């Protein structure tokens, strides 16, 4: 039986999280099909067909799928999913939104946020904010899965030559509609894909002070993140939150500035390769996971660090 992977995209570009899900799917093994559902998403389908390891791209191009509404998409995916052994999506907010509906329509469980593939029916996933790792076996005929991107390497964007096939099915539940969105536009890399991440916490004091982190980030080609405390305090918007319920990151270098290191924050960044913590409180729990700890006033240390790089 083949595996269906759900592509993450914005109708114009294929998002990187898809490539990590493709790698997880290829570890399961089997023919691999990628579903691109959207509106005017032809360019995404072309990009999807290039991804190494993908055998076939299914394209459902219709206004009903333009905004990835869960009500419409879940009907399409569950209908297609009946012919697959696994239906796999990245554990992004859109994957998390749609896939449980798919599972319920197929009357099967969902395995959320898997971090390892042990066999075609056995997977590892973090529970209790990553304080325990569960090994779970699926007893269902169809496995519905979301994949934690940081746990799998990205598949190569090129090298594949999949066939592209149109899917005619249109499901429009008519019960929900898109009103609008506020999407942050930034020239910096995406938080979950960046090689370097600079994050600020409550110690930043206010939103304006994030400017010093942005300067450091630009020097390093880094993304800027934040702890929940900084987001809750209104310093920065929600899409910058790193942690159990925000984004999970695992860059080469993570620089935590003015972040105490609550369990919920560590859950989102402790897989980073090298962790630097700058905090004036030498008892801060973040120092227990940091490779390099600097006890210092961040308002002096960060500009100094920026000037030395």
């Amino acid at each position, binding site marked *: 039986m083949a595996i269906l992977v759900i592509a993450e995209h914005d109708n114009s570009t294929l998002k990187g999280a898809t490539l990590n899900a493709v790698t997880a799917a290829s570890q399961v093994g089997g023919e691999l099909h990628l579903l691109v559902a959207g509106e005017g998403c032809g360019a995404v389908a072309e990009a999807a067909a290039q991804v190494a390891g993908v055998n076939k791209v299914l394209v459902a191009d219709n206004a009903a799928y333009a905004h990835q*509404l*869960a*009500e419409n998409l879940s009907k399409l995916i569950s209908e297609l999913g009946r012919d697959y052994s696994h239906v796999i999506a990245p554990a*992004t*907010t*859109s994957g*998390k*939104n749609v896939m*449980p509906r*798919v*599972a*319920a*329509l197929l009357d099967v*469980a*969902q395995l*959320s*946020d898997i971090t390892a593939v042990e066999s075609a029916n056995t997977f590892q996933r*973090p*529970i*209790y*904010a*990553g*304080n*325990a*790792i*569960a*090994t*779970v*076996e699926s*007893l269902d005929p169809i496995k519905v899965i979301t994949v934690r991107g940081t746990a799998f390497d990205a598949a190569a964007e090129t090298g594949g030559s999949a066939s592209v096939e149109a899917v005619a099915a249109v499901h429009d*539940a008519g019960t*929900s*509609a*898109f*009103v*609008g*969105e506020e999407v942050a536009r930034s020239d910096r890399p995406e938080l979950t894909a960046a090689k370097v991440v600079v994050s600020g916490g409550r110690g930043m004091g206010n939103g304006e002070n994030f400017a010093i982190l942005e300067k450091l980030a630009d020097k*390093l080609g880094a993304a800027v993140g934040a702890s929940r405390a900084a*987001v*809750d305090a209104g310093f920065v918007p*929600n*899409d910058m939150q790193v942690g*159990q*319920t925000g984004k999970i990151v695992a860059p080469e*270098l993570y620089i935590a500035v003015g972040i105490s290191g609550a*369990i919920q924050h560590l859950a989102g960044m402790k897989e980073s390769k*090298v*962790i*630097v913590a700058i905090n004036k409180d030498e008892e801060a729990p973040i*120092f*227990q996971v*940091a490779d*390099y*700890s*600097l*006890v210092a006033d961040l308002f002096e*240390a960060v500009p*100094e660090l920026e000037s*030395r*790089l």
Partner: protein
Amino acid sequence: MKVLVAVKRVIDYNVKVRVKSDNTDVDLANVKMALNPFCEIAVEEAVRLKEAGTASEVVVVSIGPKACQEQIRTALALGADRGIQIETDEMPESLTVAKLLAKVVEEEKPELVVLGKQSIDSDNNQTGQMLGALLDMPQGTFASEVKVEAGKVNVTREVDGGLQTLTLNLPAVVTTDLRLNEPRYASLPNIMKAKKKPLDVKTPTDLGVELKAHTRLLKVTPPAERQAGIRVSSVDELVDKLKNEAKVV
């Protein structure tokens, strides 16, 4: 408008979780339990809808052993009107929970169902979406703002790129994110009053739902521990380590 809120009893978020030495599960013996934080936000939102005159009644439902009545009472103390416990000593999976809740929704006919987006124990983030699918209701997940008007609910959602707003026909399912509201503390008089509010107990059999296992938990292990590294005394030393030791800049 009637609002139904589903809540879960979980380990208190301040408790450090430990894995059992036989690797069968985490150790929950003698551990402090509490209302799941996202569920608390769901209760608060429903109570605010009632205070604003939008909701007429707030019904709270929880699934679990008798002990979960404690969390139902907590929700009643926060302002919910009555409770329903679905008694089981098992830990039903998300799909089963959604099926049980779907039966309660069919009986109670609320126009809005509010749940936390995930529980901090299993971290699944599934039940609300599954409930929506089983009932063919629209959903607004990860909500940071909920506005009910003219037979619809507008939900602003926290998504990867920022915020997205949807409009949903009622009845609908909403799941809460962290910034939807800040839950109040229950006052002592309200805690006392909550003890007298009605609480019905039902069983999965009463609702005609079989507790089927779709997965098997093979083992639970502690995560790889990260060792603390070294203290550097200056920015210069830090830059030196990053360049010459870690080689990441």
